[in-house]
């Protein structure tokens, strides 16, 4: 049935463009997550992680395209081949390693609790008991809060940004998230301050942030590992970090 076959291929190309072999679609979360990745008013994605994607892809000699995807569907999208890799500040955890593979980490930051300046809150289970804690869905922070802060009322948001917004509105008492993202947030929001890092639990909070790829996609994994090693070794990461944070914090 060669005729039928060519017809099908024609139909497929009509509704979709077959990705050229070299093009790698990098999934980022379709939400503002400053200073890592956020859309600007001219429709481009900018931020520390976006520049890191460019640098890592250049070092790994990959032709990368940034593709925004809903965060809570980002792993299914990877496995459904809608994207080829995830570089969206996704921590390398045991739970995720059961489903996808990760490259070597390209950054690692602590996890902190942010709360209203007026409130006397410490990043401990006792202090958060009875408080309303906002976390983003499908994150290490949600998993951590559900394990340790069992006496807090945990409210789950689609994006961290919505949790931040409700923090400003006063609907939640505290939020748990990445230290660097929160540093950027409290700088712009007069309401809140960082109350300190939570006690580490690498099994849940992970071992830093890496690029996620489909299981079995070993060539791409090797390329990312090479790229990550290169940008750390040749000082590119330091340069990008200094541009965004004023100093090299890694």
């Amino acid at each position, binding site marked *: 049935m060669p005729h039928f076959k060519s017809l099908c291929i024609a139909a497929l190309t009509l509704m979709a463009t077959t990705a050229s072999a070299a093009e790698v679609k990098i999934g980022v979360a379709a939400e503002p997550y400053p200073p890592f990745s956020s859309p600007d008013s001219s429709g481009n994605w900018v931020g520390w992680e976006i520049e890191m994607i460019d640098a890592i892809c250049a070092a790994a000699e990959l032709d990368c395209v940034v593709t925004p995807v809903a965060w*809570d569907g980002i*792993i*299914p999208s990877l*496995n459904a081949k809608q994207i080829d890799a995830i570089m969206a500040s996704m921590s390398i955890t045991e*739970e*995720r390693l*059961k*489903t996808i593979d990760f490259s070597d980490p390209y950054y690692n930051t602590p996890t902190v609790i942010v709360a209203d300046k007026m409130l006397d809150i410490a990043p401990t289970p006792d202090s958060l008991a009875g408080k*309303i804690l906002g976390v983003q*869905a*499908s994150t290490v922070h*949600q*998993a951590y809060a559900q394990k340790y802060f069992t006496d807090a009322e945990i*409210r*789950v*948001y*689609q994006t961290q940004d*919505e949790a931040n*917004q*409700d923090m*400003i*509105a*006063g*609907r*939640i008492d505290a939020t748990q998230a990445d230290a660097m993202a929160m540093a950027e947030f409290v700088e712009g929001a007069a*309401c809140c301050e960082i109350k300190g890092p939570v006690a580490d639990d690498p099994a849940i909070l992970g071992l830093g942030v890496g690029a996620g790829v489909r299981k079995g996609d070993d060539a791409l994994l090797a390329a990312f590992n090479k790229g990550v090693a290169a940008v750390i070794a040749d000082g590119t990461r330091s340069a990008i970090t200094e541009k965004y944070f004023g100093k090299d914090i890694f």
Partner: protein
Amino acid sequence: MIPLKELLQPHRILLMALFAGFVLWCAVSLRWDWIPQYLPLAAHGLWTTLWILLASIALGFPLAMLLGLAQAVGPWYLAWPAKGLCTVIRGTPLLLQIWLLYYGLGSLFPQFPWIRGSELWPYLRQAWPYALTALTLSYAGYEGEVMRGAFSSVAKGQLEAARAFGMPRRTIFRRIWLPQAVRNVLPTLGGETILQLKATPLIATITVIDIYAVSSRVRSDTFIVYEPLLLLALVYIVIALVIGQGFAWLERRVPR
């Protein structure tokens, strides 16, 4: 319901066998081991879905009657705002309305510090009042349009006859006009209620934990994609069937 005899036609038996095979395949080859762990959460989510659905209809229907009445017979200063409200609610996506209510209002809170000291603050902090408000307004908007038609379609002769008997206006409304208008919309009410059910998962986007949110939670905790979604679809189909049968029963009970 379909009589048993109609179900037992050869092609239907074949289809049902195929479907049973599909269900069996789902049960055997897909992962269901997560169910016991999430059962309590799912029960809670189902309860939230149902009570928000019922409450939004119970609050929305009287509002819809007011909107319909205002448009059908009200003076222009009542008819125009009612028509405007219906147009805006029917003309914009419910998701946008929910976000405008929840995040839009929330973004105004910091400008009014006294809100946090008010009696209402414990409710304003929760998500469900916004969800309930948005769903109630949405139901009222769509049903208000239907009620407008229902009120104006009651035969004029009936009202004139009642007036000729010297019935007071309030009694005419209560005994003649309203029952007939409600009787007229009853066939569409079942469908509208199912539409309302289908609107409820949107409230999960503002942190209300309904049955849809529970399925998202399973998806994000376990990375299982299809199974929670299939089960969720089944839950909604069952609820929709119950609603449909309920209204069919109600319609049979109401005299023509």
